[in-house]
């Protein structure tokens, strides 16, 4: 066997243990390669941490993935050492074994190393295409988070997560560091999206329907995350706030994630329906867990009487502890209770333990007549504990294997504690209410489409909505007066558009009334020996307009510019046009909403309401229009989504979203103009799926370049801006004729 020449004192301390373990799990060649590798890493001169990590992690990794991997890892570490990122070697080696356990295949591990290399290359600062002396901002953080990531995500998920972070924070190393150390909200959101299994957020409605439909219970859900608590594993529970449950459940063989949620809810609901709380102080902790087991099984029995199908899922999820699997010297308490619980749930348990068989029989006798009760279960529980008590129960080494029943809550509402009200009461309520928060509604979060990555950035844009401040309504009346001639012409067109409520349909074989002219002609034909026309009736048909319209105004700063060839600013012309349109639509009686938007980075997109669907065209609305102001940028996608959100909830056959804009989508925090154009395009497509027809009126003479990318063929470019007041209402009427 080779020997390791290494001068670090700490390495000498652990070497013996590590070698001993390596000899146990590796072949002779493997051990040689292991020592060679350690030697190579030692000679790199990057301190003792990499050597220590290699010595400790490599044997397990190699035993999981095959011994070939030792060479690959050493080669990879050598490559790392030649870059400015040599500080990342230690974290890479430290996470190795845990990642190997998640991946379980050498091939996937190779891919992981490739991913690390690529991340390093794309995040290390470069000068003229050559690595500079500075290390990557985030590689170390990534390697530290990697074991946790692989614990929850597939290889593909991790890759997406990494790419997202590399791409979106390339200009902001501090945020990138936060992202890769899993501390920023964005990084958690992306992680959540990439997770496999059934997400709570996707199935919340199904679950609340389940509670309401099958259990007639209305409770709120409070999801907790299993991803970030490494110290303790939270369990589901039920308290005053509602039902606390994990935010994701993976599919298990035979039980999908949704069924796992339902199993949990069924169990909690059964408690809510049948459990009567009792005083905890009269029982010892062991008695309590035994009573809980009996009570859990009792409510499950009652639930299965109503819903026999639950038995299948619960039996799958309930662990099946092997009789006698608990070794000597361990506290058996959990093991015994889990066996009892299994026996009560599953008549075909096959256990031979006398106490368990006896108490199963007693339990079934109690359940044979009616519902039994929590108190009866308490008696059984106490008796079971006193009969099976062992000295070793009190030991600190508790046998946990196969004893965790994941779909059961922790029964905290089953117990009342006497001490609770007994002590002095300390007021802990805050004495003053925080002010200032009522002014602003919380933002609505919208995703944004990332065209390069071909996926949504979740909850990317914060949109704040508000009423537009009001000004002098008389200004709008003056504008309308100025355009009185135009209004008169419009009125004529509108009269033709106005719905005629009943329209006569003639020449019907069946109808409500005889059409005398046709009838007489038919009789004449008939008498004259010709074939008469049988279509002698007429009918009436309702002809109504049923269309809801939302007008979305781009209020970005460019609106203040004076349009070429005009004396007024685009803003003033828009004001005129919008007033005329609002007046015309009001005359027609279609529900119309007017909203404006501008944005100041993705964190603040403002959506201002001028007019709601239910509001009439009155002084209040006119006042808001009169105060119209321009400022900031144009983040169109979020605004379209928001306007579409309201419009899609309107009850109308046809829904039309008119977007009036004077430039392409842009914002100060977006460098690539294509991003926002593509995002707006996707937003339009989303609305199309919801039955909303989007149409754009652009005041930008050079709009042809991008506007058809976003809106397809549904757009008009108005070159001569002064004609907008004339064109806008006519365009609307042409669209809705």
């Amino acid at each position, binding site marked *: 066997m080779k020997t390791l020449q290494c001068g670090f004192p700490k390495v000498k301390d652990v070497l013996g243990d590590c070698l001993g373990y390596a000899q146990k799990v590796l072949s002779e060649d493997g051990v040689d390669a292991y020592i060679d590798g350690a030697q190579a890493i030692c000679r790199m001169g990057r301190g003792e941490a990499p050597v220590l990590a290699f010595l400790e992690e490599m044997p397990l990794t190699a035993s999981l993935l095959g011994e070939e991997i030792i060479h690959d890892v050493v080669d990879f570490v050598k490559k790392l050492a030649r870059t400015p990122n040599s500080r990342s070697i230690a974290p890479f080696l430290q996470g190795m074994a845990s990642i190997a356990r998640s991946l379980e295949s050498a091939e996937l591990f190779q891919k992981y190393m490739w991913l690390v290399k690529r991340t390093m290359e794309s995040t290390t600062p470069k000068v003229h295409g050559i690595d500079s002396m500075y290390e990557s901002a985030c590689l170390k953080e990534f390697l530290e988070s990697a074991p946790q990531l692989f614990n929850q995500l597939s290889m593909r998920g991790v890759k997406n997560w990494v790419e997202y972070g590399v791409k979106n924070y390339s200009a902001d190393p501090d945020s990138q560091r936060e992202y890769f150390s899993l501390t920023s909200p964005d990084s958690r959101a992306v992680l959540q999206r990439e997770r496999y299994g059934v997400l709570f957020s996707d199935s919340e*409605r199904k679950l609340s*329907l389940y509670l309401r*439909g*099958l259990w007639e219970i209305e409770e709120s859900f409070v999801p907790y995350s299993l991803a970030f608590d490494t110290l303790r594993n939270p369990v589901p529970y039920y308290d005053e706030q509602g039902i606390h449950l994990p935010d994701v459940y993976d599919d298990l063989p035979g039980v999908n994630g949704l069924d796992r949620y339902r199993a949990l809810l069924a169990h909690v609901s059964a408690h809510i329906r049948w459990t009567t709380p009792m005083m905890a102080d009269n029982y010892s902790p062991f008695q309590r867990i035994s009573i809980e087991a009996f009570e859990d099984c009792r409510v499950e029995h009652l639930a299965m009487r109503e*819903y026999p*199908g639950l038995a*299948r899922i619960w039996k799958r999820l309930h662990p099946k502890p092997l009789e006698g699997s608990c070794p000597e010297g361990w506290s058996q308490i959990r093991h015994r209770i889990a066996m009892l619980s299994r026996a009560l749930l599953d008549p075909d348990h096959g256990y031979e333990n006398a106490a368990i068989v006896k108490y199963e029989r007693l339990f079934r006798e109690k359940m044979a007549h009616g519902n039994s009760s929590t108190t009866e279960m308490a008696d059984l529980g106490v008796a079971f504990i006193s009969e099976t008590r062992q000295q070793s129960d009190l030991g600190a080494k508790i046998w946990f294997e196969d004893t965790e029943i994941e779909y059961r809550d922790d029964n905290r509402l089953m117990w009342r504690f006497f001490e609770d009200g007994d002590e002095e009461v300390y007021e802990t309520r805050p004495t003053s209410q925080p002010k200032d928060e009522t002014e602003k509604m919380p933002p609505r979060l919208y995703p944004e489409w990332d065209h390069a990555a071909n996926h949504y950035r979740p909850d990317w844009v914060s949109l704040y909505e508000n009423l537009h401040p009001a000004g002098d309504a008389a200004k709008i009346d003056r504008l309308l007066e100025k355009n009185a001639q135009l209004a008169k012409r419009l009125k004529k067109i509108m009269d033709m558009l106005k719905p005629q409520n009943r329209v006569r349909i003639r020449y019907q074989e069946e109808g409500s009334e*005889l059409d005398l002219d046709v009838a007489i002609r038919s009789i004449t034909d008939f008498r004259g020996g010709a074939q008469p026309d049988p279509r*002698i009736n007429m009918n009436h048909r309702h002809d109504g307009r049923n269309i809801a319209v939302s007008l979305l105004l781009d209020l970005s700063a460019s609106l203040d510019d004076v349009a070429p060839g005009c004396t007024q600013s685009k803003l003033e012309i828009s004001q005129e046009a919008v007033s005329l349109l609002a007046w015309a639509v009001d005359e027609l009686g279609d529900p119309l909403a007017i909203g404006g938007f501008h944005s100041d980075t993705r964190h603040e997109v403002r959506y201002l309401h001028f007019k709601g669907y239910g509001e009439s065209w009155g002084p209040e609305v006119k006042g808001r229009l009169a105060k119209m102001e321009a400022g900031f940028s144009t983040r169109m996608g979020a605004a379209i989504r928001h306007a579409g959100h309201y419009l899609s909830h309107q009850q109308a056959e046809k829904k039309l979203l008119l977007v009036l804009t004077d430039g392409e989508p842009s914002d100060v925090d977006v460098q690539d103009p294509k991003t926002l154009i593509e995002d707006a395009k996707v937003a339009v497509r989303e609305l199309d799926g919801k039955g909303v027809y989007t149409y754009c009126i652009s005041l930008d003479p050079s709009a042809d370049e991008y506007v058809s990318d976003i809106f397809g063929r549904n757009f008009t470019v108005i070159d001569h801006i002064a004609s907008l007041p004339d064109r806008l209402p006519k365009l609307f009427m042409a669209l809705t004729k």
Partner: protein
Amino acid sequence: MNETEQYRIAKEPFYQAQGKEIKLFEAAYKSRMPVMLKGPTGCGKSRFVEHMAWRLGKPLITVACNEDMTASDLVGRFLLDANGTRWQDGPLTIAARMGAICYLDEIVEARQDTTVVIHPLTDYRRTLPLDKKGEQISAHPDFQLVISYNPGYQNLMKDLKQSTKQRFSAMEFDYASAEVESEIVAKETGIDPEVASKLVKIAHTARNLKGHGLSEGISTRLLVYAATLMKDGIEAQDACRMAMVRPITDDADIRDTLDNAIDSIFG
């Protein structure tokens, strides 16, 4: 007389009384008071009218109302024949002439201008003017008007006018209690009572979801359909999906929940 016979109900239609409705209806008929039956779809309103017509031994003329129905569809119209035009009585006129019970099913579906033609028949006048024909019919002493109306799915546009509502006495119907309903399903289809009560349980699941994505729960009629399918040897789960879940919803979440309820209940 032959014409009257075709509207008579020969065999007793099965109806399981839930309360005093039979006695109340008989009392209303005694003074020929117009009756309005309210209740969710498929809870047994039409069956009740049939049963009462049979019990009272009167002919029954049923009209299913719809949006395109006009006054002349109820009252009658001129038709062409070899000698010119001929008047054809509508169902309401026939009933008024022969002394039948006229049952206008789902009256809110008809437009309001159509419903007003029944007004003169429903108060003390008991006449029906045929303006196009220039005739005034006095209703036969046995004639009675019954309408049904489902307050569940009406919208603002579809409601009865107060002036129409206030011409009727009204009886409220609802789905029967669980025991009675499973008895009904069992009797109607001959299925095992235990299975019938399972079906009723599924129906209750759906009724709990009313207003949360479902506009109506699963009706007794659908339960009967499901039981009939099962009677023909269809697997319980499949029968329930086909007859009870798929018809009432297109919402994937609700469908999923109800499917799960079926699996849980049939085990």
